[in-house]
């Protein structure tokens, strides 16, 4: 069970404008800025839930995950994970969680993954029998085969991710923090990883917190989403409800067998794209029945389909409530040296 109350996290970031004079000045005097990565976020997650964190770059998602896993101390507010205060990094706490950061490896580079597994087994005090059983199951779920015996540097990105997941989970944690786990993977590998996470969640009743840029990860895996923007929580609840609330309109696609006058289409709805016989229009939810009925009756149709707009549109809409001021890209990731 995860409980977060009024979590605030601020960083001091070194600011230096470009140019020679500023560069020289910065030898003697560095200018700092206080960046609010997370500004008062509260939520509660029960055991076994799968929750997606959504938000643009620099919104505070990774920061929140790091606070939950004890890597960062909050500036204020309280955090409790499985009954522990993550800051104290007690052994029992650490044995119950895992953090996977996409593209940051914990596998030993020059050695086969099996060596990292052996090391983690020793670190997490996993008894031999349990270790073997878990590795068998993970091997099945992840389709590891002979991957674990090749040196890590010889694996492809997707194979490496599978082994990373095995290394991260061989101590059977019940709380998973996954930060961009599918980044850089090809589509089939993304699907495989998603399936694995779902299976692990169901088999071990594990809580899953996932951040991802790929909306398919979230829509496929997470019934509940927490949306964070500029360090503030702007939505916490069911994903489908969010979609419905944000964008009460549908996309209707026509495949036309003959020409149609533009104004005829515009009367039906907002034309999103028009491309040699295939037209997509956006129609408000409440007008859908009329539009579809009218189209079937009066347009030279070969095919018609009705879809939800891509979730990315919804996100873009959610986050573009300000004018085009650039977000703090990467600033909330703090001093990185």
């Amino acid at each position, binding site marked *: 069970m995860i409980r977060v109350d009024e979590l605030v996290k601020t960083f001091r970031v070194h600011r230096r404008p470009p140019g*020679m004079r500023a*560069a*020289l000045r*910065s*030898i003697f005097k560095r200018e700092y800025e206080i960046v609010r990565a997370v500004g008062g976020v509260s939520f509660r997650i029960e055991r076994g839930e799968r929750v997606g964190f959504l938000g643009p770059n620099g919104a505070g998602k990774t920061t929140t995950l790091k606070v939950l896993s004890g890597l960062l101390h909050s500036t204020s507010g309280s955090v409790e994970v499985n009954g522990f205060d993550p800051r104290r990094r007690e052994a029992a706490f650490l044995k119950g969680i895992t953090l996977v950061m996409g593209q940051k490896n914990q596998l030993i580079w020059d050695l086969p993954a099996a060596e990292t597994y052996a090391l983690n087994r020793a670190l997490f005090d996993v008894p031999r029998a349990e270790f073997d059983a878990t590795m068998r199951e993970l091997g099945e779920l992840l389709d590891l085969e002979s991957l674990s015996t090749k040196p890590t540097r010889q694996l492809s990105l997707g194979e490496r991710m599978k082994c990373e997941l095995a290394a991260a989970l061989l101590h059977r944690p019940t709380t998973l923090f996954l930060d961009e786990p599918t980044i850089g993977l090809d589509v089939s590998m993304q699907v495989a990883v998603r399936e694995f996470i779902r299976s692990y969640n169901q088999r071990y009743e594990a809580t899953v917190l996932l951040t991802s840029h790929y909306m398919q990860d979230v829509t496929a895996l997470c019934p509940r989403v927490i949306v964070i923007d500029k360090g503030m929580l702007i939505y916490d609840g069911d994903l489908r409800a969010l979609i419905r609330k944000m964008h009460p309109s549908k996309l209707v696609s026509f495949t036309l067998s003959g020409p149609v006058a533009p104004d005829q289409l515009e009367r039906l709805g907002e034309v999103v794209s028009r491309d040699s016989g295939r037209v997509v229009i956006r129609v408000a939810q409440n007008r859908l029945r009329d539009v579809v009925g009218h189209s079937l009756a009066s347009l030279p149709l070969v095919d018609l389909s009705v879809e939800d707009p891509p979730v990315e549109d919804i996100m873009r809409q959610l986050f573009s409530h300000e004018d085009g001021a650039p977000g703090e890209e990467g600033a909330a990731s703090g001093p990185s040296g």
Partner: protein
Amino acid sequence: MPSGRTASPALETWRAALRAAPAMLRIGVAETVAYRAEFVVWMLTTTLPLIMLGLWTSVASEAPFARFSEREFVAYYLGALIVRNLTSSWVVWQLNEEIRRGMLSFRLLRPVHPFFTYAASHISAVPLRSLVAIPFALVLLFSSAREILVTDPLLLVVLAFSLLGAWLVTFFVMVMIGSVGLFVDKSVAVFDVYFGIFAVMSGYLVPLALLPGWAREIAAWLPFRFMLAFPVELAIGEYSKPGLGAAAALRDLAIQWGWVVLIIGSAVAVWRAGIRRYEAFGS
């Protein structure tokens, strides 16, 4: 450009370099400033002359060692420290890192030849390095050792050219060693072996006069002495002593620049061969 004729590729290379020079240098300085902690530390690593200074001045405090008195050791090692600071080069590590991380390709894609871009990052570090060398120079100038420093204007001019020559030889030797990394993964090991020889044969470890006769003979034929001992000896007035003089200085300067030409030629050849291999095998 005159119509109907294209400039030779070599000329174009130089032109491109000169056009890009201001930007390269500015970025180089910004880099230096951004990583100032690193650079200061790097400069402080040339401590061998200081330790040797401590050792030999202590030894010579009882009685002169060979013909070096305390004062002469002070002059020599501070001079060696300053010259080393001004002329040393880290191209081996730059190349090693870029080859290892596959980033050499980026450098090769720039319209300016890598020799120039590497040189630019070194030249732009000179101001900061000079800053660090200044305290030592001041100590040198205010100690009793200043009496033996060279004052003859002609020799000072030769000294200036000898420093440039030393920098060039050092830089291109480093380029050659770094280029080894284009063939095998062992450029740092090669550097280690090289450094051992360099330290002895260039007068970095001990003044060449302290080496046994046979070693001195060998050192006279190698380029190493022109990377360090030659400028230092000019600076501490060795060439003002009877038996040597302006003629000897000019002669040795000519030999140094002969080495400059030879080393640059070799570096270009090794580099080209290495790049051909690199491009064949990919990063």
